[in-house]
């Protein structure tokens, strides 16, 4: 995008890269310029196209348009092995090695040194030791890989990459399974690679790391390269703003979303509060939702947004305190949460939302079946009435209730999935990216619907990567960072700038990196015991599943 001036003779130039998958355009004119001996970061939201771009570079995918020049020569790799031979090595998030072979065998797998046609084990072990020594790793290369910890295994993967005389090493989320000390070791290794003239392409969603080790950063959004700049001098807020496609200090365009009533409705009782959630991706997150309130859950990728919603819904195990209408609760499965009047829609409609081969009708009534059946037999007349009513009320465009849901557009699928909960007359909806991948019109409709439901007393926890949705839709915003609740704003305090600052830095003060270990208190009445997973009392909320299936929210 921007001209790579001041960069001495580029090592790698990718221009105008395009790639589409069935139904999605993954890359739409992406570019990447990497100089020799440069550590180059690629950042972007989920789905921005980072991984696709890398896979096109190393031959795992084929591009549909665009050019790749390596040291001034056009290249076109058909598979990662070809790329590796040409000096482009990739280290994946999941380490791609054989656990029960020795360290040396892993490093030289597929190109073992031979003498008279036989494996020259002595030379292989000596060479492997030499490669690892260069990385500052001193281990016995004859031991099986499985005896090493993850960090050392990663070193072996790097050793494997550079042993092929790599000129570019690609690292995709290399620190995701490392602890702080191990991250430091990795950074030292990266600096060592740089000193030896090897370029590193570094993909991470941990912004702090970029400042520690990277020289330049390419920012991607919606399959395009948005910006490329030196990392020095770029503030975290700036990077976040570019990733989200916002300008700092941008005037809020009111009416850009379908939300109308933010801050204008009286919040009711506390429906759910989760305190100090711990688990995979969670490290002390707290959140509370009242009835008649939309709580926006903001945070960067990997901040624990989805994990919070899933924990509150009982979809994944997590430790911490969960209270439903003030009473301690513990879910064994989502079924328990549904009985308590909760509903959850996943950010991944295809993987966790629709049942593709079922009809619109069957998808819509899936969660309501217990209420819709007598003695286990589905009441068809009642089902038809409800399905017709919601198709009409939400304006679901379908050839008919018997059409398979996978034939619907994304927006209409999402409406069906919302109706799946609304026909249960729920008290709380957990909506993870409710408008992702939906066209503009349907988006505004769904936003308007959420708004109206909250007006009618529904509690909503809404996760969104789109700042507007959070700032215009939410009555209250909770910001997560690295699995912790780091800030909370009510509707009067919310602006895109404040939320972006909190997402990038963890609190209001730019530049301050460390936040207290416990998440900022999100909930009043925190007096209760830290009754972690041991609480076995089942939830007995005031309003369990309604016997009758009524209009969402009861009234219109």
């Amino acid at each position: 995008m921007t001209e790579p001036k001041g960069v001495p003779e580029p090592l790698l130039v990718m221009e105008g890269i395009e790639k589409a998958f069935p139904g999605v355009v993954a890359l739409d004119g992406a570019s990447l310029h990497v100089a020799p001996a440069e550590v180059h970061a690629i950042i972007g939201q989920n789905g921005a196209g980072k991984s696709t771009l890398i896979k096109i570079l190393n031959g795992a995918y084929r591009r549909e348009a665009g050019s790749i020049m390596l040291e001034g020569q056009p290249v076109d790799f058909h598979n990662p092995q070809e790329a590796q031979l040409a000096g482009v090595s990739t280290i994946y998030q999941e380490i791609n090695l054989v656990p029960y072979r020795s360290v040396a065998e892993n490093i030289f797998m597929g190109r073992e040194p031979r003498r008279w046609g036989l494996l020259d084990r002595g030379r292989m072990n000596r060479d492997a030791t030499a490669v690892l020594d260069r990385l500052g790793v001193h281990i016995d290369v004859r031991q099986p890989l499985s005896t090493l910890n993850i960090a050392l295994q990663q070193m072996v993967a790097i050793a494997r990459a550079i042993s092929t005389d790599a000129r570019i090493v690609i690292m995709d989320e290399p620190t995701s399974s490392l602890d702080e000390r191990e991250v430091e070791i990795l950074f030292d290794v990266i600096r060592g690679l740089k000193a030896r003239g090897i370029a590193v392409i570094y993909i991470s969603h941990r912004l702090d790391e970029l400042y520690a080790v990277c020289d330049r950063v390419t920012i991607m959004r919606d399959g395009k390269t948005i910006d490329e700049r030196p990392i020095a001098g770029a503030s975290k807020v700036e990077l976040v703003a570019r990733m989200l496609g916002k300008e700092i200090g941008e005037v809020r365009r009111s009416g850009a979303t379908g939300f109308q009533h933010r801050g204008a409705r009286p919040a009711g009782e506390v429906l759910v509060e989760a305190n100090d959630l711990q688990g995979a991706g969670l490290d002390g997150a707290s959140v509370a939702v009242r009835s008649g309130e939309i709580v926006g859950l903001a945070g960067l990728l990997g901040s624990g947004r989805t994990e919070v919603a899933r924990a509150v819904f009982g979809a994944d195990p997590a430790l911490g305190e969960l209270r439903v209408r003030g009473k301690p609760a513990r879910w064994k499965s989502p079924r328990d949460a549904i009985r308590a009047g909760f509903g959850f829609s996943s950010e991944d409609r295809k993987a966790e939302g629709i049942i593709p081969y079922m009809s619109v009708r069957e998808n819509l009534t899936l969660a309501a079946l217990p209420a819709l059946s007598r003695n286990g037999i589905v009441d068809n007349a009642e089902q038809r009435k409800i399905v017709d009513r919601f198709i009409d009320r939400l304006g679901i465009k379908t050839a008919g209730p018997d059409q398979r849901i996978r034939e619907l557009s994304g927006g209409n699928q999402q409406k069906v999935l919302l109706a799946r909960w609304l026909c249960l007359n729920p008290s709380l909806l957990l909506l993870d990216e409710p408008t992702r991948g939906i066209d503009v019109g349907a988006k505004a409709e769904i936003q308007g619907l959420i708004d109206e439901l909250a007006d009618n007393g529904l509690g909503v926890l809404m996760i969104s990567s789109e700042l507007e949705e959070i700032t215009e839709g939410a009555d209250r915003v909770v910001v997560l960072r690295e699995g912790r609740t780091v800030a909370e704003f009510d509707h009067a305090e919310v602006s895109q700038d404040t939320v972006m600052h909190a997402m990038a830095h963890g609190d209001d003060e730019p530049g301050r990196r460390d936040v207290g270990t416990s998440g900022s208190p999100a909930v009043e009445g925190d007096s209760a015991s830290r009754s972690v997973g041991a609480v076995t009392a089942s939830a007995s909320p005031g309003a369990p599943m309604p016997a009758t299936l009524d209009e969402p929210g009861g009234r219109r």
Partner: protein
Amino acid sequence: MSQSAGQVTSSSLTPSRLATSGLPAFIRTFSSLVALATLVIFNILFTPNFLAVGTFNANMTQVATIVIVAVGMTFVIATGGIDLSVGSLMAIAGVLAPMFLLDARQFGAPAVGLVLAFVAPLLATTVLGAFNGTLVTVVGLQPIIATLVLYLGGRGIAQLLVNGELRELRNLGSPLIPSFEFIGLGQVFGIRFQIIIMLVVVAVAAWVLRATTFGRYVLATGGNPAAARLAGVPVNQVKMAVYCISGFLAGLAGLVVVAINRSADPHRVGEYMELDAIAAVAVGGTPLSGGRATILGTFIGAMIIQLLRFTLIAHNIPDGITRMVIAGAIVVAVLAQRQRSS
């Protein structure tokens, strides 16, 4: 269908589109019906005595046990699983039943022995189905591995129960034998009783899959287990239940086979049944990937395979060629369904 997937525009809401999107299951069933009808007509024209009562009974007798087992298999496959243990479970049920007939006098009234001869084997195979389900859900094994355990071990159990010996029913000397054999050899209004059992099993299963919450849960579990769980479907209980159903129906088929043969052979009862059942399900139009299922299709699929085999044997085609033709028919059937459903 594939180009327009994901987008419904006003132009796509035409009557023809409605017809194709709403009725694929019917069309699939219909194509296999055509194949079945072709086989029947061919045999009427070219096979002597095809319409004789004896021929009809022979064909239906052979297909009945396959259909009963294949119905259970259809439920398992609908959840995305598979059950290789059905043949061995048939053998276990088969060798258990004579034990209760033999010792009938111990139970006071003879009727108790007769009832136990039916109930105990069915209970046993249902519990073994639950064992399969536990391996799949709690232990988390792949269904093909989980049910391989009883495929191998189950026949071993059957052999151990009778010391590997074949048991002739008439040698038991029990007055209950004729009553027991009724399920295999008896007739109601001139129809073999096992055919009635088969038809009842098919009808009930088709209704359960179509009209009940459980049926919906089975298809949701196979169609997208993660989404089903988030919608409150008790995915693990559903899987457990389908393996129990498969075990129960395998046990029932085992009893029928023993009654027909008037003997219980731990080595031969239910041999290769798992493969016959899976073939019937596949030919019938239920994809092995789960999420879609047709009981009627399975019934027709079993009939097609049976008639194909009968036709080739009746015309003195060598066994080797018969097997290859059946294999070819399975490939054709599955390919035809894949074209229609994608």
